């Protein structure tokens, strides 16, 4: 079972890339949602 390390490395690298991408989208979406809340609150107060 030589080269098993490389197989694991490939799977780790692949899944790592997918995971990082997903996390980055989730974080940015959450940040935007926070901003909407903030803006909506300031609008409510202004009215």
């Amino acid at each position, binding site marked *: 079972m030589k080269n098993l390390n490389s197989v694991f490395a490939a*799977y780790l690298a692949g899944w790592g890339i997918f995971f990082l991408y997903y996390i980055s989208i989730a974080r940015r*979406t959450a940040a935007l949602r926070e901003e909407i809340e903030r803006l909506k609150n300031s609008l409510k107060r202004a009215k």
Partner: protein
Amino acid sequence: MKKHALASAVVFLLLGAAAYGALFVAPTEKTMGTIQRIFYLHVSSAWTGLTAFFICFLANLVYVWRREPRWDWLAVSAAEVGLVFTTVVLVTGPIWAHPVWGIWWTWDARLTSTFVLWLLYISYLLLRTLVEEPDRRALFSALFGIFAFIDVPLVFGSIRWWRTQHPQPVVMGGSGSGLEPTMWYVLLFSWGAMLSLMALLVRARFEFEAVRGETDLVRREAEGV
């Protein structure tokens, strides 16, 4: 939220099952041995990337026809996700090549074509950052997206023709190496798992685009007050 968590769990399970299949169910390949198991991740990523770019192409066509922003959102989401899958192909290729050939890159036909594909869609995303007006940006990127996609078969075809003139080490053993039935099943299952991951990622990215649109609206309303 609950549906989303359930979907993510299903995708995660499918990916786990696909990895298990690749590592334990699939028979060991005769000539290359264990290292060949990267094949299931590498090829399924490649096929999924192309599927994503095809979805981008369809979204581009519909946008040019209908001019509704959600088709532009789908296009950029599919393109970005396709690019992620293509990156995985370009990363797993050298990880496979190094133990087998001792070198990281071989300018093999499929890997080279994948590199050009990657560059094409990076250009697509860069174009979007350089056009400011939203409608114009959507239209121009849709048109470039259409040109880029119809170029894809020409890129792959011409590079493959070029490479048959100067045979190089072929990553993944080439199309000549036969696949046993079990290998086909594992490969197709891997592709299915990858497609479910693609759907999840595209949906998340699309949602981000939609929320961004909403944020702009609320922002403008707040400024107007």
